């Protein structure tokens, strides 16, 4: 059709490809460190985790070639099909799936297992981009809002039911993309306020927090009254509603936390809020991972020299807790470098997204930036004890074929879209 087909690599953003290569390389090195044993032999020993990961990486190269070879238009046109297929695959888990660690998130294919939720991110991002690409979509319109929320809500609910709340969270994060595309800011503000009030209630308890919050609002009203822009005799119903809504919210958070949450959920929060320092039971993972990272010091213990990594003290160290290996063996310098690389990578995606002429490509770009960013933030935040234990992988670092492929597909579809940005379709 077009000249480009002579050379599928024309227009490729090599910076993003370079980031991809660096992250994959660093990730594999750390998986090697976390899973190598004295008895294991060569690098291509497929019975080991690092050997398998090499396999996944090799196969992802094939995937990349395929993705790059396909016309960008294809992704847009078939996004609906992808979306429906992937929702079906999520729903199918409840019938055909196998359970690992209590979550029915896997299809067992005999030779390997596949986690469809990793791929449904791609499908959802494509569907979202496609939906918003229609000319008359206006996110300040309530009907549009409802439809877009539905696109995100379906996979989120299906995944929550597995149950895999961590992965589901990623779909909610796509609200930030909607904001970029015109969703009114108060959705975000209300969201943030709710999170803030939620945390306040958990840390201070219902009574103290309601006193503090109500005093703050009262002070604000007194201040507004002084500026003469606000008249109580006109606005009092709103003020009353504000008090009532906040009071009710605080009460329900307290109620939900204490009566509806299970103890394991409460424990996860209380550990991060510093109320619970149980280092043997529920806090074991986080505590071990923090000790492991802390023991790395400034420069780290060196590649394969991490005694806590070699001793496998951190559970899931080659998957969700892979970053603790970086912290122990490469120290503050190494782990900061990884964070900087990730930040630069995400910023690069946003930059590339911003230069897209097509709305489809831009929305998709922002979606993958958001997905990468939230995986990165939640995963590392959890490993270093800033966030509750939410098990989601660190892109390109964590061991696992499905997640590696999922992230690879996300990135290279975007690279494909970007390579074709000069063409009007």
């Amino acid at each position, binding site marked *: 059709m077009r000249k480009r087909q002579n050379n599928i690599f024309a227009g490729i953003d090599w910076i993003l490809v370079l980031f991809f290569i660096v992250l994959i390389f660093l990730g594999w090195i750390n998986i090697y460190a976390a899973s190598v044993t004295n008895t294991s032999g060569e690098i291509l020993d497929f019975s080991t985790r690092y050997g398998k990961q090499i396999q996944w990486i090799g196969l992802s190269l094939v995937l990349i070639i395929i993705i790059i070879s396909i016309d960008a238009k294809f992704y847009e046109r078939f996004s609906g099909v992808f979306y429906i297929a992937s929702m079906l695959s999520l729903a199918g888990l409840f019938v055909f799936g196998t359970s690992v660690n209590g979550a029915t998130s896997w299809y067992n294919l005999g030779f390997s297992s596949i986690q469809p939720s990793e791929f449904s991110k791609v499908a959802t991002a494509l569907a979202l981009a496609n939906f918003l690409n229609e000319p008359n979509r206006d996110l300040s319109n309530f009907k549009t809002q409802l439809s877009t929320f539905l696109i995100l809500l379906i996979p989120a609910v299906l995944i929550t039911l597995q149950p895999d709340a961590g992965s589901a969270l990623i779909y909610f994060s796509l609200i930030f993309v909607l904001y*970029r595309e015109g969703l009114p800011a108060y959705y975000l503000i209300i969201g943030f306020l709710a999170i803030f009030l939620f945390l306040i209630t958990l840390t201070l308890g219902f009574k103290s927090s309601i006193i503090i919050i109500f005093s703050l609002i009262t002070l604000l009203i007194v201040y507004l009254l002084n500026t003469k822009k606000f008249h109580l005799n006109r606005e009092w119903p709103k003020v009353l509603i504000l008090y009532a809504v906040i009071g009710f919210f605080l009460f329900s958070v307290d109620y939900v936390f204490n009566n509806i949450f299970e103890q394991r959920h409460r424990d996860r929060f209380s550990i991060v809020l510093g109320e619970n320092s149980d280092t043997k039971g529920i806090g074991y993972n986080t505590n071990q991972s923090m000790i492991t990272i802390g023991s790395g010091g400034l420069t780290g213990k060196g590649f394969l020299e991490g005694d806590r990594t070699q001793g496998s003290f951190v559970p899931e160290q080659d998957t969700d807790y892979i970053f603790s290996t970086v*912290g122990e063996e490469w120290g503050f310098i190494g782990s900061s470098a990884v964070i900087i690389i*990730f930040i630069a990578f995400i*910023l690069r995606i946003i930059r590339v997204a911003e230069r897209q002429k097509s709305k489809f490509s831009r929305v998709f770009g922002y979606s993958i930036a958001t997905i990468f960013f939230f995986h990165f933030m939640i995963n590392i935040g959890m490993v*270093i004890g800033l966030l509750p234990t939410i098990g989601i992988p660190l892109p390109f670092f964590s061991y696992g074929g499905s997640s590696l492929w999922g992230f690879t597909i996300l990135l290279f579809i975007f690279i494909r879209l970007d390579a074709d940005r000069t063409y009007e379709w």
Partner: protein
Amino acid sequence: MEKKHLAYFSILLVGLLLIIRLFYIQIIDTKYKPSPLNNSAIAVKYDYPERGFIYDRNGVLIVANQPSYDIMIVPRDVKPLDTLEFCRLLKISKKDFLKKYKKSRIYSPRIPSVFLAQLSKNDYAYLQEKMYKYKGFFIQKRTLRQYPLKSAANVLGYIGEVNNALLSKNSYYQQGELIGINGVEKQYEEALRGVKGVKFIQRNRFNKEIGPYKGGVYDTLATVGKDVTITLDIKLQKYAEDLMANKRGGIVAIEPSTGEILSLVSSPTYDPNLLVGRERSKNYTRLFLDKDNNPLYDRSLLAQYPPGSPFKIINALIALQEQVITTETPFYCHGGFRYGRSSKAFMKCHCGTHGAPVKLDKGIYKSCNSYFANTYKKIIEKYPTSSEGMKVWSDHVKSFGLGNFLNNDLSTGVKGIVPDENLYNRFYPNFKWGASTTISNAIGQGEILTTPIQLANMTAIVANKGLYYTPHIIKKIDNKPIKIDKFTTPKRTTIDSKYFPPIIEGMFHVIENPGGTARWSRVEGIEICGKTGTAENSHGQDHSIFVAFAPKDNPKIAIAVFVENGYWGSRWAGPIATLMIEKYLNGQTNRPREEKRMYEGSLQDEYDKQLLKIALEKETK
């Protein structure tokens, strides 16, 4: 475009937050940096070196080692096991098993501790085959003490498990490890034990050991314990112990020219091999509960006796120094000394001089009470007040090392008592006391109390004509002679050396003069200077005391012998002291009859009588 910048800003902010957090846990907060010792990723294994041997002054091996095997436990690693079989192999009951398991669990689930100590060689051989079945248990080889000569238990001390108080104070020791508890084993623990080796072993979270930690760079090799040579002459010690058979008391022999302790005997004693191995605690309890014989009580260091007549030597020296008498000053004795108006105020004397003038020499060899009562009175009354006189006297006495610790290297000791003016001012607050009130001091009775080692040291002082070296037990560590200032610098008494020869002469006559109190202990060919003593004892028969040194010129040995309830000095203490001198100087005795009498003589009747008397006294109360 504002929204784009907001996105950039938020992402950078999150990145910054994560880096700050990393900086905090990796650089600032130290609680995330465990030391290799309490890092759960690392197993610590100890390699116990062999404890040093102990030799006597002539190079005779006194304390050696024998291998022993401990069953160790790491409670965390224990897997369900056939308890019945295991208990049968270890010869313990199931109840014991649970008790021991619980104890080790309380100590630490992670650090190995001793589950069952000191298996016999046979048990070990049998058990070793089956150990693989019992996860969490392993066998640790250690060495146990062995005493080929079965002697000097009180000097050598013993080793036992380190107690909790010490565990918390000294980080070197782990629960179940052995430490010297008494005697030389305790005093020279650090030299004898060596330094245990440490191996750090990397393990995974299943506690499986996966190789040396960091290639073994932190591992240390065990340093073998150093051999220790002590000043004891084990042949003399053993001889003295045998002579003291069935008699209670203490003997201390010192080399006057160095202060080296040649023997340190406490009787009754016990076989040191009893406090070794699995039977240790049973035997210890048995010895501990034997309150009649009290074998664990070191009489040579702890028993405080009135010194009796040997103390007259000091009074004589003080009197000469204070120039209240000369060697020619005569006193007269009519069967005793009257020190007050009442008929009871009379100190009897059995010197048998019947009013003939008694001068210093005779005073000593006849041990005339009257002579020394007069002498003592002159010392105290030289000064305007009794307090001043008593202070001068007391200071002189204390300069002989009496009434205080000798600051030696023995693990135990007591001060004894030397009365002074303060003591008497307390005793008689409203009463004008004087020489007559305290006249018992003249003959070593009354308030004054000394231990055998103090009296032996006093004898060495006379032998040295006024100076002494602090008695000590250490001679060499690792075959290198030990030079410790406090043992090699002589200490002087307050008595000028010129006053000693007449006293020595008197002591010589105690044995040589036909009228001497110990003439029956004379040894052909050895010039022995001695002094008998008979100390009154409120509980029963008098104690038999003898101090001596020999030869008269250039003395090689100074000795003090206390035999409890031994009637009088020359009956038991005299022969024992002179036999020991003979043995030490000549290697053998030419008085086999005397030797036999000592071997076979028993004072058990006397002790039984005394026990009965005390029991009766209790009942009447």
